[in-house]
């Protein structure tokens, strides 16, 4: 015979269990709704920085070794370094498309682009007494490089672009004189067409100097940013002759 107080305890426990189950189900449903609300939030994390603009990409063709300009509508950032990087990223993305005339593997090609004003100078701390007035802070000052023949700009405001490529891109790049040269000339021509202040270009791979792109094209030298399209190259050759 079950006593009365035992029955009361039993039913109280049953009510508590049911209540906790209901509470758990309700909280679970609320959690789902919160996650769903976050997923459906289409508010951009970063606001668009610029409107789409017309840029010129110098596109290479492996079949005849030519480079031809092509116009594209692309939104580019305003900051020159980011702009140069975005241009190269769009260029490499074109080559990764199916049916590309200069097929490259998809993926990020450029880690960073640095634009350095020419002529190249070094920096030193300001050793003058006036520089230490405010709490001993010594600012850095540009000084002439010890190199007696530094890289000079052709026009005032000329810049050197240092392009730091990803090793994953370089290691997967097709090997050959033509295909490697076309990639470099395509990058040089695209930068020249859209950022005319870039006069010279150097390449790094993961922040280090590397001898060749994929066994052939020289990556140790400084390249001039110039019109590398087939018509532009022919014109420059005609002038030099």
């Amino acid at each position: 015979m079950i006593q009365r107080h035992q029955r009361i305890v039993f039913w109280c426990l049953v009510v508590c269990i049911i209540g906790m189950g209901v509470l758990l189900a309700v909280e679970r449903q609320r959690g789902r709704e919160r996650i769903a609300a976050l997923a459906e939030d289409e508010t951009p994390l970063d606001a668009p920085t610029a409107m789409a603009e017309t840029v010129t990409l110098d596109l290479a063709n492996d079949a005849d070794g030519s480079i031809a300009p092509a116009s594209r509508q692309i939104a580019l950032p305003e900051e020159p370094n980011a702009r140069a990087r975005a241009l190269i990223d769009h260029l490499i993305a074109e080559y990764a498309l199916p049916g590309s005339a200069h097929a490259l593997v998809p993926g990020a090609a450029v880690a960073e682009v640095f634009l350095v004003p020419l002529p190249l100078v070094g920096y030193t701390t300001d050793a003058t007494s006036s520089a230490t007035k405010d709490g001993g802070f010594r600012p850095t000052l540009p000084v002439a490089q010890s190199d007696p023949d530094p890289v000079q700009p052709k026009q005032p405001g000329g810049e050197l672009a240092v392009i730091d490529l990803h090793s994953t891109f370089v290691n997967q790049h097709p090997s050959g004189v033509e295909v490697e040269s076309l990639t470099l000339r395509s990058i040089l021509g695209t930068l020249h067409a859209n950022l005319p202040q870039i006069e010279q270009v150097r390449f790094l791979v993961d922040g280090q100097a590397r001898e060749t792109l994929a066994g052939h094209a020289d990556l140790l030298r400084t390249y001039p940013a110039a019109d590398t399209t087939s018509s532009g190259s022919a014109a420059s050759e005609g002038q030099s002759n």
Partner: protein
Amino acid sequence: MTMTGRAQVAEPAAVAPGQETSKPATAPKRPATAPAKPTAAPAKPAAAAVRHAAPSSTPGPAPIPINRTVIVLDPAHGGVDSGSQISDTTVEKNVTLALAFRLRSLLTARGFSVVMTRDADAPAVPNAAGSAMTLDDRAGIANHAHAAACLVLHATPSGNGVHLYRSELEASEGQPTVVPWLTAQAAWIPQSRLLEKQMTTAFSRSGLALVTSSASVRPIDSLTCPALVVELAPSGDDADSINDTDYQQKVALAIAGTLLVWQNQVQPPARLAAAAKETVGQATPSDAAGAQP
């Protein structure tokens, strides 16, 4: 065009005794080192060659020697450096060596002496057994030969036919006494252009697909001879067609035929004595360390 980096003389390495791998069966009829213009009047050979020398009462600098019967072939890559993967069974270093052997046979039969930077898989440094040969070592071998032409042989699976490249350097008026290592080819650019033009004509006559351009491929910028990069691509859609013996023979015949004519036309650039003095005066101590007297 600005080049940065170290500067050296154009002849940093000695030629290994075994590097000159092929001699003609019969002795060449021309002297090993011909004057700049053998067909010109013998009274003023130096004046004919040194077109850009400063006018003075003292005799101008001696013309740059050139061996009209010597051709340098540089089969690119070798050893652990296989070059590009042409197909599942073919790598670039084997194709370049095979093409070099074909060219050597044809050139030797035409009376040339052929200097090859490698005639086996693994190139070795002259006078340093066991060490891998660098691109600068190859340029050193080529520059010591004073050859009528230097051909850097490559192969690629992309494209069709033959790709012909010259250096991207801008032509200079002459060759200074102290030659910057990284721009040594600049004085030879006009001759390289002429050789490229003749090769283009020969390949067109042979019916071979051809792409000509300029490229920065080491060690061509350091060569002191008319220099071209010859990149062999497959003859058709099949990458293995690059190994076709008839195709390679056709390419080699076109090159050998061009060089046979070229040996009578090649002219060394003028030697710029005045420019050399300026270069020495502007050079840093480290640059001048390797200066040629």
